[in-house]
């Protein structure tokens, strides 16, 4: 259910936003090991599990456990609804940044944008997917 600013509250949280953007970099049909995701985001296992559970409950990510013992692997991937939800989130985010730029105001408290990184008139595009620039040997 969208929040009052239209941003999906499941995604609109710092850690979960990082998780879905990171997973969106993967190509369709790929998954990432829990350990590598944890390492990339610099989170504790418990913290990551908590946020993954929320995303999984919403149907945005899929986690699969395979193997056992030392070969045990938990893989995480962004589901199709999750990718769609992120695309929608990015569209709303872009609109909010554009309207903020047009009005010369911050659309939502708190915190100013870092002008070195984000220009309200040039919001970030959708996450570039791995399939768009997969290198070849």
């Amino acid at each position, binding site marked *: 259910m969208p929040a009052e600013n239209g941003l999906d509250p499941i995604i609109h949280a710092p850690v979960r936003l990082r998780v879905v953007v990171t997973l969106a970099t*993967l190509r*369709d049909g790929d998954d990432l090991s829990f350990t590598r995701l944890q390492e990339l985001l610099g989170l504790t296992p418990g913290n990551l599990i908590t946020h993954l559970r929320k995303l999984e409950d919403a149907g945005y990510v899929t986690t699969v456990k395979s193997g056992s013992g030392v070969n045990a692997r938990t893989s995480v991937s962004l589901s199709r609804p999750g990718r769609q939800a992120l695309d929608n989130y990015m569209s709303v985010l872009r609109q909010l940044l554009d309207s903020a730029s047009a009005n010369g105001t911050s659309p939502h408290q708190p*915190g100013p944008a870092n002008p070195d990184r984000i220009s309200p008139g040039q919001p970030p595009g959708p*996450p570039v997917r791995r399939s768009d620039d997969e290198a070849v*040997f």
Partner: protein
Amino acid sequence: MLEDQDMSVQEAAAIVQDARARARKELVISAPLVYTAWGLVWLLGYGAMWLSVRAQNPYTGPSGVSIAAVFVLAAFAVAAVLVIAHRAAAGIDGQSVRHRRIILATWAIGYLILLLVQAAISSSVSTRTLAFAGFAGPLLLAGLTYILASALGRNRPASALGAWLVIVGASCAWLAPAAILATCALAGGGAFLLIAVIETRLRAHAR
């Protein structure tokens, strides 16, 4: 960061940019580095072979030193590409892993067939035909492999590079041995380096 935090849209946009840049750096194979590695093999290696044969009359073949240079450069390129790919692919499983295996198997089988064909025809064909098979054959194979890879991964720059390499490799059928080496070095190696520059700009633009 266990609990949800309130964040502004600007902060959200900054997180998206940061997470995307980090994920791309860590999880995506650096195409410009891969193209540059192979471009240097073709440009420097084949360039060295061409320099060793350009004054030959009649043509007797590249010097042993220049052939060794090609193998040394290729070994460095293979090692660099494997390290780059291994780092980026760590922890990733699924379709792209299967595609990579198909591409590697195609290239390896193709190269083996090329070596066998060269061995089979070496005593019964002209020097020019042998030079075409030996020098332009790997370029044709690389071009076809890139076309296959682009079909599997929907990669437009790789598709353009593959098509160009096939055209360059095929055009070598009309050239003398020394010209084949020069063409492969300049048009082949140059294309790899050009694509590396284009990829770098595309990535900078996407940030």
